């Protein structure tokens, strides 16, 4: 049984109102009206009266975890999180960017979110394909059951089967289109570096001009920085104005990390990010 968007919206408004009213939180991160129905926006409620302006519909795709790190440490924030968004918040807690006590998870179990550009339903092809938040303080609807469980990594099969030349040709074409607007990193809840490595002038990791080599360095390094941290929300790819399928590469790295380190990103607040961790008995096989 799933809850309608409307009932989720009602619950969201009610819970947000209560949290603001009681002073439990200073801020509620949710969704508000955009320039039309198909384009709602991330929305910040600070007063109980702001709650009336909240919306929730199938186009409320944005991962609001992105905004958490924008507020001073210690700010009490409630955040509306769908499944992947929730994992992003957990990952941020693991990384001590925010404290568990400072954040209220308003969990949204939902199936049927749509990409406003294509109108397609967002599922495991471009995201982690989870529909229920793994952790929440309040659940704003009934848990989604009965959706076919598809591994988020299934979509990789075709690409893994490609030979290396074809795969390189594929990625080269994709990365060459990059205009370096950096919407991917800015939409990413885990990309909180300021400055980003690619903006540094000393060292100059890659050229600033949008040429193949600088683009490649930017994207590959970003994939590495997100290894074991990417929660596969797909925001990078949806934000991209030229539709580079970044999610594919992120999925591949996430899959490998999960296999090698036995841990998926953002599933438990007790985990330690995999790449700043080790086990003495990690096998040398991972290097083969």
């Amino acid at each position, binding site marked *: 049984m799933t809850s309608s968007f409307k009932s989720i919206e009602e619950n969201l408004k009610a819970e947000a109102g209560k949290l603001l009213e009681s002073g439990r939180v200073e801020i509620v991160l949710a969704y508000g009206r955009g320039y039309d129905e198909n384009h709602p926006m991330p929305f910040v409620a600070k007063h109980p009266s702001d709650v009336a302006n909240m919306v929730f519909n199938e186009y409320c795709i944005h991962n609001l975890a992105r905004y958490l790190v924008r507020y001073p*440490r210690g700010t009490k924030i409630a955040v509306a999180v769908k499944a992947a968004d929730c994992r992003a918040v957990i990952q941020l807690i693991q*990384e*001590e*960017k925010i404290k568990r006590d400072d954040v209220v998870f308003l969990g949204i179990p939902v199936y049927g979110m749509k990409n406003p550009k294509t109108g397609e339903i967002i599922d495991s092809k471009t995201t982690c394909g989870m529909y229920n938040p793994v952790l929440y303080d309040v659940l704003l609807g009934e848990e989604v059951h009965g959706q076919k469980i598809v591994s988020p990594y299934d979509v990789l099969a075709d690409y893994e089967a490609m030979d290396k030349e074809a795969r390189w040709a594929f990625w080269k074409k994709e990365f060459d289109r990059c205009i370096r607007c950096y919407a991917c990193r800015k939409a990413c809840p885990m990309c*909180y*570096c*300021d*400055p*980003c*490595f690619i903006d*540094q002038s*000393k*060292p*100059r*990791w890659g050229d600033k001009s949008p040429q193949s080599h600088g683009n490649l360095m930017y994207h590959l390094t970003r994939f590495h*920085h997100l290894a074991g941290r990417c929660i596969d929300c797909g925001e990078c790819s949806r934000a991209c104005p030229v539709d580079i399928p970044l999610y594919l590469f992120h999925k591949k790295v996430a899959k490998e990390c999960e296999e090698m380190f036995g841990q998926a990103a953002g599933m438990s607040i007790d985990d*330690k*990010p995999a*790449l*700043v*961790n080790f086990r003495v008995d990690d096998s040398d096989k991972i290097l083969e």
Partner: protein
Amino acid sequence: MSRIGVFVCHCGLNIAKTVRVSELAQFAATLPDVVVAKDYKFMCSTPGQEMIANDIKQHKLDRIIVTACSPLMHEQTFRKVLAASGLNQYLLTIVNIREQVSWVTHDIEEGTAKAKALLNGAVYRARLLAPLTSRVIDVNPDVMVIGAGIAGIQAALELANTGKKVYLVEKNSTIGGHMAQFDKTFPTLDCSACILTPKMDSILQHKNITMLTSCEVSEVKGFVGNFDITIRQKARYVDHGKCNACLACTEKCPGKGVSEWDEGLVKRKAIYIPFPQAVPQKPVIDRDSCTFFKKGKCRLCEKVCEQKAIDFDQQDTFIQVKAGAVILATGYDLMDTKPLIQYGYGKYPGVYNALEVERLFNSAGPTGGKVTMRDGREPQAIAVLHCIGSRDKNNSEHCSRVCCMYSLKFAHLFKEKTSADVYQFYIDMRAAGKGYEEFYNRIIGEDVKFIRGKGARVAQSPDEEGRLIVEAEDTITGKFIKVPVDMVVLSPAMVPRADSRDIARLFNLSTDKQGFFMERHPKLAPLSTMSEGIFIAGVCQSPKDIPDTVAQANGAAAEALTIVVKDKMELEATTAMVNPASCCACQNCVRVCPYGAPFFNESKGVSEINEALCKGCGLCASVCPSSAIIARHFTNDQVLAEMEGLMEF
């Protein structure tokens, strides 16, 4: 713009044979920013060094590249040349064209080409080098020794005798450690107390030693030369400043506790001193067995104390100590053999562990030195089982090193004090120590029955109440045997203290698989640790006997002295630093550093690095996503530039 001087060494024919050195110098001269490039027969010779020094002055060089042997050979030599010429020594780059070029090829074309590529990399790198200065810090002249067994006592005395102030921290209410529990020591069979108690007394008397008993380290801050350590002194409920050690209280006390000192074989009072020669000779109250603490009534001790030293309101107190160096001598625990149910320890009263037996032999022990068992009998047959839990893949893989010898000592003492038959069940006899083999031979001559086979099981005799059967395979005869005995002595593995990992965490040490503290290098630095200024001595590093422990204690004292003897010390210059403007507060550096050098400054919202703790490995720099960490001398741009130079040709 840099002014680079390149100096190519022939190393006689060592290099010149497979690298065209003059061509290399000519090539160098064509590279951007290279002002002068020369080749010479032996660059490390005095004339070679003078040539570099002169060129630095004449050409106003600000970067020097020496193209010669491995930096591990002569980097220091050439750094001195730079320093003497007024150039910062870190502006030197060594190109290794001997070990890694001329000696590994016979082809002069290949050799020359590779040398050019390496040199080009060095030129790219040299341009970006920055002068570095070592920071000099003040050193606190005091030393803290943690653990007051024989290792700690020895180290403390040695240091105190050099005039250094020593803080000796002991968890128990008396110093002395395990050695004070022993009766005799192998192989000389001299009385343990006779050799130890004078040292314990010296600790008490020494004007340079502050003895802190009933104390544990609760927090360690700072770094080599400047440790800032918080000690928690547990409440003793007796004001040791007032107590005159009349011990009237201990006589009147109705409370009964289990004597830890006597390994639980007897009871002691609730207010007590662990043993007659304890240092300090002042009692403490054990809350758990004290009638007043349990029932709220009694206070007999308070009534009899003329000094008014009893203080039931005493609380744990915290003492701040500063020290320049720390020696850890925290010793060991005997393995708990109860889980090894096949040996029946804890189940059959006739089964003892080694420390209990030590107490049985001791004239100050529970039986006044008589070997009588828990049921009051004198044993007629005794089995001593070696290697219980040690040399055992399922428990402790290591050899505990001393059990063979003390088991032989037990045999001797049993023979001396009883008329019992004594059996030794052993895997093989390890007697590697001065006088040990001789001791073994002596015991062989004392009508002790040696069975080469590990004791496999201890069982209740089906026939006789209180009689035990030891089962083993005699590997000499290949027969499975059952030996009926009255008393079984287990020689269990020596294992790290239960809290060794907590202590390791406090001092940022690593522990080995078992939990013993890791030395910096197993052979060349067995007393140092990866934490600068923290040394280890005795069994906390690995099982060893008293002579080795004492030797280590002396060694650790000397090592600690090398730090505190100077009033200033130089810190590593090639450390890492954080550029706060780029720090994204991900705290990866804090998570990964093996030395705890980076820390998060909550108020500034950025990580910082305590350079005194930094060893310059550069791990933090590579896990820093925003490149905020600068690993000095191996900065990102230096490495990237060198790679670019290496790949150009």
